[in-house]
């Protein structure tokens, strides 16, 4: 009973974090066709913004949304400086990988310079602990498990039920056609990055609430998010979400039975197997687009 509760809880919790990260990556990929390698750094920056705002005396209920909003702006700025000017370049995918990596390194070192290497922590969403099926868990983690699906559902509703969301999906499906019917594609590119950065910031705040923050805290979640999007199929939103929880559970099971050290190797093995059997990801249909 204890083991099952442990795995279930760990899987749900890790899965939530990965889902938040992976959805942002997939959103940017489907709309613009580039891969944002500074996504992990955005996550870290969001956490530091939140910490700074709390440190200035703002209550978390105000500081957290404000940090997310600031990060949305940062995401917009990022695409305006290192992505949009490159659109139309023949080797766009490759060049954007390098520019986002460089931008990430810039931000990472900037944070190190500005806030120093000392570990920081931001207040949890809800303080306190609880017993659940014989496992001691923090309410903060429970809150994340509950809040994440709500946020993802809201995103899904936004993409499927609002004009703006539909416009984003239109760009993802056919950019030229979207431009022809008068959509502001440039603005929508910015929007995709802004939403992705905001989601990354949320993940950063979640993570910073129970683990110490460092300037390199985004590296591991980025790697996991990459695995998730490969696993789930990158060209949809729902695929990565399911895959995120699947990977979360896979990780929880592996680290329970094989230990932490072997988990990455097993994860990678599973990834290679998936790619050899179904290169487009296990949850991807043949068609493309946001769904």
């Amino acid at each position, binding site marked *: 009973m204890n083991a099952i509760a442990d795995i279930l809880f760990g899987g749900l919790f890790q899965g939530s974090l990965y889902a938040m990260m992976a959805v942002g990556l997939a959103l940017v990929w489907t709309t613009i066709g580039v891969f944002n390698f500074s996504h992990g750094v955005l996550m870290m920056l969001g956490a530091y913004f939140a910490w700074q705002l709390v440190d200035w005396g703002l209550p978390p209920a105000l500081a957290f949304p404000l940090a997310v909003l600031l990060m949305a702006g940062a995401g917009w700025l990022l695409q305006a400086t290192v992505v949009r000017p490159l659109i139309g370049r023949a080797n766009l995918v490759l060049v954007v990988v390098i520019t986002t990596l460089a931008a990430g*390194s*810039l931000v990472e070192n900037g944070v190190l310079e500005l806030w120093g290497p000392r570990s920081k922590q931001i207040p949890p969403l809800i303080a306190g602990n609880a017993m659940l099926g014989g496992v001691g868990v923090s309410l903060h983690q429970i809150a994340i498990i509950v809040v994440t699906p709500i946020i993802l559902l809201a995103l899904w509703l936004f993409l499927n039920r609002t004009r703006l969301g539909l416009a984003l999906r239109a760009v993802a499906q056919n950019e030229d056609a979207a431009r022809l019917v008068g959509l502001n594609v440039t603005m929508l590119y910015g929007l995709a990055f802004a939403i992705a950065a905001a989601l990354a910031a949320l993940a950063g705040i979640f993570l910073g609430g129970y683990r110490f923050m460092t300037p390199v805290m985004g590296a591991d979640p980025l790697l996991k998010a990459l695995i998730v999007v490969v696993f789930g199929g990158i060209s949809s939103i729902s695929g990565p979400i399911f895959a995120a929880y699947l990977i979360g559970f896979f990780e929880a099971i592996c680290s329970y039975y094989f230990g932490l050290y072997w988990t990455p190797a097993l994860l990678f093995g599973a990834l290679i197997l998936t790619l050899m059997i179904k290169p487009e990801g296990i949850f991807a249909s043949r068609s493309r687009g946001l769904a």
Partner: protein
Amino acid sequence: MSAVETSAPTASAPARAPGRTPWMTELAGALVGLLVLALLPLVVGDAYGRHVLIMVFIYAVVASNWDLSLGYGGVFNFGHLALFGIGVYAYSLLTKLAMMDPWVALVASGVIAVVAAVVVTIPILRLKGIYIILVTFGFAQLVMQIILSQSDYTGGTQGIVRIPGLYWFDHNMVRDAKFAYFYIALAMLALSTLFLRIFVRSRTGKSIVALRDNEEYAVSRGVSLVRQRMITLAASAFFTGIAGAFYAAYQRNASVEVFGMSLATIVLSMVLLGGTGTIYGAIIASFVLTVFAESMADFGAWRPMITAVLIIVVMLVYPGGIVGMLKALWGLATRRRA
């Protein structure tokens, strides 16, 4: 623009347009370049200056070999630095634990890197674009995780220290102001460059460029995507592994930092800054970036930030890289004269 076009590996280069350089001209140019480099220790007498040059040569080998798979092969291979890291650790373990002769270990590290490249090629044989990036990136992380987890042998996060260095008969390589290491590194770069240039000018080299530029057409003309891709990655691995081994022998310590993102970013920007699909471009860019970074040693934490800004600006302003820029200048100059 968007996701559909991942099929075309378009790290395109302006290199093969009309008027390919005749091989005699190229050889003469390369020899002159080599001679200039070989005479550099006469000008650069201090150990520090030579150290910078040795690092330039190591980077140049890694970057130019990366250009083979990335620029010529059009394979978005992000695990190239892992091959370098494998060379570092292969040499360290072979000389320290297996007590192998350093020179034998140097070559063995290259072979081990080739084997690793073949292994990582298997899952990416039928993949395209972004998926190759993701898998090879994951491969690099996996190698790092394995090294970290086997801390009994690899020292984990502590790394390995006091690795046996190379030797040259009875010559004392520690007290010669890096004289011998300089020439070994230069020889490594010369051999690697010779190998790369012969490779890309060969039939195989032409076929991998054909695959990059028009996969369907090349395949329909009988070029095997699977075989050529494997050959490309294996070929780019050999000198990369040797460079890693040399790095370990020269620095005499190894750490997992060689798998880190920052080193990968810098070397990748050497490839892109030089201009993909040129080989020489990567070498020139290694020189420019390393010397630039060293000259800013006083800036401390600002150095990686300035480098990052520089990379972004060059990517935005000059898509063809340094070689593209030189070609444009050359074209301008010859037109004036005519």
